[in-house]
């Protein structure tokens, strides 16, 4: 404990780096998944091939990707962030597709029949209704990204993962335990922020626990489907 307090500023720095390395790729993954998901729902034939590609990329071990990327991006943050972005994409893409497919058909039809254009329908009807499923996907992507960052420690860019390599070299268990605890704390904080964001963004769900459970089950299914497709 006293070790943690005396090294507080270093730990804070590592925590910040871990958050940055983990969450920027999740955001990038979301930015890419949204148009990709929208197009895959619009043209159904796109979905299987795109899903296959993201699944194959998800299956490539992170360490292998680092080694390949070092030749191009060197020992920079990008070398860690690109693989994490790809993993996030692989989790978020099916979430976006599932979310958009969760828009009930009568709702979509009613929107068309009332004179919504394609774009307006997407922004004001379909994306808001997809939000719970997308956020459920974001929670999975964010938490796994936060823990995956530590692998980057093997090439010296690993956020809190540094505590593992350093602790191991010095045979100093406290450091490793502090690292694990901080990663869990960071993951919990991020998850809580996302849950709060969902509550703010989807006020209509606050009164309906059933719908929420349905949404997270859909997201879980999407992730399971992805994992099944990997094996």
């Amino acid at each position: 404990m006293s070790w943690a307090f005396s090294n507080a500023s270093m730990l804070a720095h590592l925590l910040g780096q871990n958050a940055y390395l983990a969450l920027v790729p999740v955001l990038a993954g979301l930015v890419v998944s949204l148009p990709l998901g929208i197009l895959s729902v619009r043209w159904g034939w796109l979905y299987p091939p795109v899903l296959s590609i993201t699944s194959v990329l998800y299956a490539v071990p992170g360490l292998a990707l680092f080694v390949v990327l070092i030749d191009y991006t060197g020992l920079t943050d990008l070398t860690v962030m690109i693989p994490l972005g790809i993993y996030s994409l692989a989790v978020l893409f099916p979430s976006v597709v599932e979310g958009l497919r969760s828009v009930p058909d009568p709702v979509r039809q009613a929107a068309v029949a009332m004179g919504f254009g394609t774009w307006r329908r997407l922004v004001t009807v379909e994306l808001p209704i997809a939000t719970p499923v997308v956020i459920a996907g974001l929670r999975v992507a964010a938490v796994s990204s936060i823990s995956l960052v530590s692998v980057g420690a093997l090439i010296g860019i690993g956020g809190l993962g540094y505590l593992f390599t350093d602790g191991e070299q010095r045979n100093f268990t406290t450091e490793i335990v502090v690292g694990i605890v901080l990663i869990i704390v960071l993951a919990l904080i991020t998850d809580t922020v996302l849950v709060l964001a969902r509550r703010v963004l989807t006020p209509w769900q606050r009164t309906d626990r059933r719908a929420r459970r349905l949404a997270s089950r859909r997201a879980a299914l999407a992730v399971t489907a992805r994992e099944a497709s990997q094996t």
Partner: protein
Amino acid sequence: MITFESVTKRYPGGTVAVDELSLEIPDGQIMVLVGPSGGGKTTSLRMINRLVDPTSGRILLDGKDVQESNPAILRRGIGYVIQQGGLFPHRTVVDNIATVPLLIGWGKAKARQRARDLMDLVGLDAEMARRYPHQLSGGQQQRVGVARALAADPPVLLMDEPFSAVDPIVRASLQDELLRLQAELHKTVVFVTHDIEEAIKVGDQVAIFRPGGHLVQVDSPQRLLAAPADSYVEDFIGFDRGIRRLSFLAADTLDLDTGVIVSQDSTAAGALAQARKAGTSSLLVVDSERLPHGWVATAGLESTPGDTKLADVPLTAGHGHTFRVDTDSLRAALDATVLSPTGEAVGVDSAGRVVGVTSYDRLRAAIQGADEAGRSASAAGSRPATEGSPAPEGVPTS
């Protein structure tokens, strides 16, 4: 006015959903399209607001081919209600209703005010404004659906099986509500249903479709029941069309018997004398307000001391179901008669006071009288389906 001119919809693969449909839907009326699934009624409806485009033929809305309009603009001017409501789950009731006004650029405040007015119009509590659709019952959701369709005050309303997903009691009240609204708003309504009862209840005109997208007959509900164009229509309407026709004949045409009504303050002897004079074996006892108490048989009165008040004589039977003379139909009167323990049914006024009593004989006389009047009034007879002549005037809808 909506006009179908030889409209055909053929899907790739050869299925014909609508076959050479010609139909005129006059302004301010409810036109019901009814038929079995595969009859093409929903496809016909969806071609009006271009959710489906015809393979050949034209659909004119006030003389203008809908194919020449921008679909989104066209649709904003046509109200649309579907079976499952299709309400936006992420928007409150008031914002659901304000959808089209917001789309066509009303300000938020004005659109919301309009939405609140419409909630009042369709009978939704103002406190529901901030609720979300999933917090409402099925019937309430359909009311929101109707209010949303009416929000921008479109002249035309398309309703695709709007009340099919709710239970029969709620459905009946929604139908009544629609008729009440229509009496106020005079929209041109195209209403699709597979339920002939519903068609006959809400339609000013009913168009019957047959599988393969053929229109068989267009007529007012009375004439449909009186003169089905062919055996298909007759089968579709069902076996009791004669009884259902009575729904269109008012109970106030009945010549009601008042001779059998007796006050509970009368004596047994007085009542017997009255029964003998009226030639009846049972009397309807009423209180001082003329509210019905029940039937008393003369056979029982003969063994009762002559000065006993009727109030103290046990009733032979209750008065059974009553019918409203001023608002009910002959169907209700017949129903009350069939259910009555004495074969005579009690007609009452709005306060429940007895107006008179009817019997099978009196019902038959009223039906014959209406038939004779009907024959001279509608000598034109049933019109073939393809000729879109305007609807007859004065068609009662309830």
